[in-house]
C-alpha cells in the first residue's frame, strides 16, 4: 500500500477572549496540538476520542475547511506530491474534488429547497464538470450505487427518512469521484438497523471505488467494524494509533484502556467492569504539563507530570505516547475467540 496523506505536526489553535492593547487574544484553545500520522491509500482509519478532544477539528483541518495554525499536509495522487497547506484558494477548490466530507446530521446537511437530483448534482455544476444530460446520467449512476431509487430523484429531502438522507449525502460526496473522504460521525444520528445499512454501504463503496476514509466517531463498536486502523485522541493529541484488533484487544495507552473498558457489550451475561476515569477532563485552553492524561491516569508517576511522552512505536504498526507503555499490562475489550479457547 502507498501513503495517500501525510499529516505532520498539525496544530489548530483558536483564540479566546479579546483583551489587552490591540485586542490581542487572552489565550488559545489548543484544539489540535501537534498531530502527525499517515493515511494509506484504500484504508479506513478510525479517529476516536471524547467530545472536545479535537476529532472534528482535525478532520476539517486536513481538508483545510478550518485553516490549520501550523503544520503540513501532503497529498499523494498519481505520483504527484501536493502540499495541501500551501495551496491558494483556487488550487484548494480543485483539490476538494479529491477530498470530500460526509457530515453527522443528514437533516441539516441537505438544502430543503433543492430536489435530490440538484443536491447530488450540484458539485458537478460548481466544478463545471458536467451539465445537462450528462449530469443527469451521472447523478442516476451514483444514486443507484448508493442504493437510492432513481424514481425519487425529483423529490425534496423532507420526503426521505434519515437513512435515505444519509445515502443522498454520500452520493453527493462521491459524485466527483474523490479519493479521500472524511466521515464525521456519519452514522451517529441513525438508528441501529439503518446504521448497519450505511456501514455496509460504505464498505461496499470503498471496494468498488477504491476510496480512503477517515472515519471519525465516538461509537467504538461501529469504528471497530469498519476500520483497518484506529487512532485515539485525547485533548488535541494522538495517544495511540494501531491496527484495529491490536488497539481493541491489546491497548497500550491507559486512556485507550479506559475507553475499551467503558464500552457496554450487547451481552447481558458479561458484566462490564469499567475502569472509571476520575476527575474532569482538563480544558484544552489550559492543558496540564507533561502527559495530558496524567491528571486522570491511575498509572501516572512524577515523570508523567513533567515530561511530554512522544508517539513511539511499540509493536509493528502500533504507536503509543506513554512513558510506561513498555511495562504496563493493560486490559482490552473482550476477545470472544480467546474466551472461547479457554
Amino acid at each position, binding site marked *: 500500500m502507498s501513503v495517500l496523506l501525510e499529516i505532520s505536526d498539525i496544530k489548530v489553535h483558536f483564540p479566546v477572549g479579546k483583551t489587552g492593547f490591540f485586542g490581542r487574544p487572552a489565550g488559545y484553545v489548543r484544539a489540535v496540538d501537534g498531530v502527525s500520522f499517515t493515511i494509506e491509500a484504500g484504508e479506513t482509519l478510525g479517529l476516536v476520542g*471524547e*467530545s472536545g478532544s479535537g476529532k472534528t477539528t482535525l478532520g476539517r483541518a486536513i481538508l483545510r475547511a478550518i485553516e490549520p495554525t501550523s503544520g503540513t499536509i501532503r497529498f499523494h495522487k498519481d505520483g504527484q506530491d501536493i502540499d495541501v497547506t500551501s495551496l491558494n484558494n483556487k488550487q484548494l477548490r480543485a483539490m476538494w474534488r479529491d477530498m470530500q466530507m460526509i457530515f453527522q446530521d443528514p437533516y441539516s446537511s441537505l438544502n430543503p429547497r433543492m430536489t435530490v437530483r440538484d443536491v447530488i448534482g450540484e458539485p458537478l455544476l460548481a466544478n463545471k464538470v458536467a451539465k445537462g444530460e450528462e449530469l443527469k446520467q451521472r447523478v442516476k449512476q451514483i444514486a443507484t450505487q448508493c442504493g437510492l431509487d432513481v424514481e425519487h430523484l425529483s423529490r425534496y429531502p423532507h420526503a426521505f*427518512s*434519515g*437513512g*435515505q438522507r444519509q445515502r443522498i449525502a454520500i452520493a453527493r460526496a462521491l459524485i466527483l469521484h474523490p479519493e479521500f473522504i472524511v466521515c464525521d460521525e456519519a452514522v451517529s444520528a441513525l*438508528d*441501529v*438497523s*439503518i*446504521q*448497519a*445499512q450505511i*456501514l*455496509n454501504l460504505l*464498505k461496499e463503496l470503498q471496494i468498488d471505488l477504491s476510496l480512503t476514509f477517515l472515519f471519525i466517531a*465516538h461509537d*467504538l*463498536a*461501529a469504528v*471497530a*467494524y469498519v476500520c483497518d486502523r484506529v487512532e485515539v485522541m485525547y485533548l488535541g493529541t494522538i495517544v495511540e494509533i494501531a491496527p*484495529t*484488533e491490536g488497539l*481493541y*484487544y491489546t491497548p497500550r495507552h491507559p486512556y485507550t484502556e*479506559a*475507553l475499551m*473498558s*467503558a*464500552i*457496554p*457489550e*450487547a*451481552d*447481558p*451475561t*458479561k*458484566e*462490564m467492569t*469499567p475502569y*472509571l*476515569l476520575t*476527575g*474532569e*477532563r482538563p480544558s484544552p485552553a489550559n492543558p496540564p504539563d507533561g502527559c495530558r492524561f496524567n491528571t486522570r491516569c491511575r498509572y501516572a508517576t512524577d515523570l508523567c507530570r513533567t515530561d511530554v511522552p512522544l508517539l513511539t512505536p511499540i509493536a509493528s504498526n502500533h504507536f503509543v505516547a506513554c512513558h510506561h507503555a513498555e511495562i504496563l499490562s493493560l486490559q482490552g*475489550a*473482550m*476477545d*470472544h*475467540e480467546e*474466551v*472461547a479457547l*479457554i
Partner: protein
Amino acid sequence: MNDDTILEVKDLHIKLKSDGVEFPIVEGVSFELKAGKVLALVGESGCGKSVTSASILRLLPRELDITSGQIQFRPPGSDKVVNIVDLPKEGKGIRHVRGNQIAMIFQEPMSSFSPLHTIGNQVSEVVRLHLKVSKKEARARTVKMLDKVGISDPDRAFDQYPYEFSGGMRQRAMIAKALSCNPSVLIADEPTTALDVTIQAQVLDLMRELRREMGMAIVFITHDLGVVAQIADDVAIMYMGRIVEQGPVREIFANPRHPYTVNLLRAVPRLGNLRDRQKLTPIQGSVPSLFDRPTGCTFHPRCSAYIKGTCEASVPPMVNISEHHSVRCFSPEATAPVATASEVAT
C-alpha cells in the same frame, strides 16, 4: 396488581390529533414494573418509547392524548393504587406524584436546565416544592445529594451556573435533582445517549449504585442494546407503538423470538469478533411513516418471516412463550440464531 408491582401500564393507547384526524402513536402497550427492578424500553426513533414514558407523568404535549388504558401506580408503603390516567392533567393530584414519587431524567442535560439560575437553585427547587423544608435545610440536602452523585466540591457547585458544568456533570446534577425527593420510580429517557462512553460508564455505574442504595425501580428508555444488556433486568422491545417482545434481558438476548428483535441484535456491531468481520445484517427498508401505518403486524413489510395473507390481515396477539417471555408474532423464530460467545465456549 401483584404485591411487588409498583407501576403497571395496561393497554395504553395514545393518539396524535392533527387537523381533526387521529393517528395512533401508542397502541395497547402493557408492562409491569417491579419494585427495585430496571425495565428497559427499547426501539428505534419514532417507536413510541419516549411518548409512553412521558405519559406516565402526564407530560404529553397538547397534540397527544391518552385515549384509553390505565397507568396504575402504588406508592410504597401504601395500599392505595392511583390510576394516573384518571388524574387531571394539571393540578395537585399529578403534581404530588410528579417529581416526588416518580421522577424523570431527560436525554439532553444541556437543555433541561435553565441557564439563568444556579444549579443549586434548580436542584433545591424540587426539595422545597415537595418537602416543605426551610431554605437552609433544602440547601444542606441538595449539597448532600450533589455529593452523592459524585460532583466534587458540592458546596461550590451549588452556586455555579449550568454553563460552568460539563455534560457529564450536568447529567449528574439532573440525577441529583430527580433523586432528591427519594422517588420510588425513576424514568430515565435516554440518559446516556448524549454522553461519551467514559462518562456513560460513570453515569450507568452511578445509577446502578443509587438503585442498590435507594431501592428504586427504573424505566430506562434507550436504543442502545449494549446499555440494555448492562443495566436492565427486563426488556420490552417496541416497534411502531406496540411492544413486540418482552421478557428478562438474558432470555431475550439469548433466545430472541420476534423477527424484529432477532434482526436488531444482528445489526449491532460487536467487539467480540473483530477477526471475523462479516457484514452486518441490516433490517431491510426503514420504519414506515406514522401517517402511513401498515395494516396488521406493522413490521410485516420489512419482515423475513412474513406470511402472506396472515401478517397484514390482523394484529398478532401477545403470546406467552415461557412464564415471563412473551412475543407478538404469527411466526416467531424457532431457535436462538444469535450465538453468544458463552454458548460457543461451552
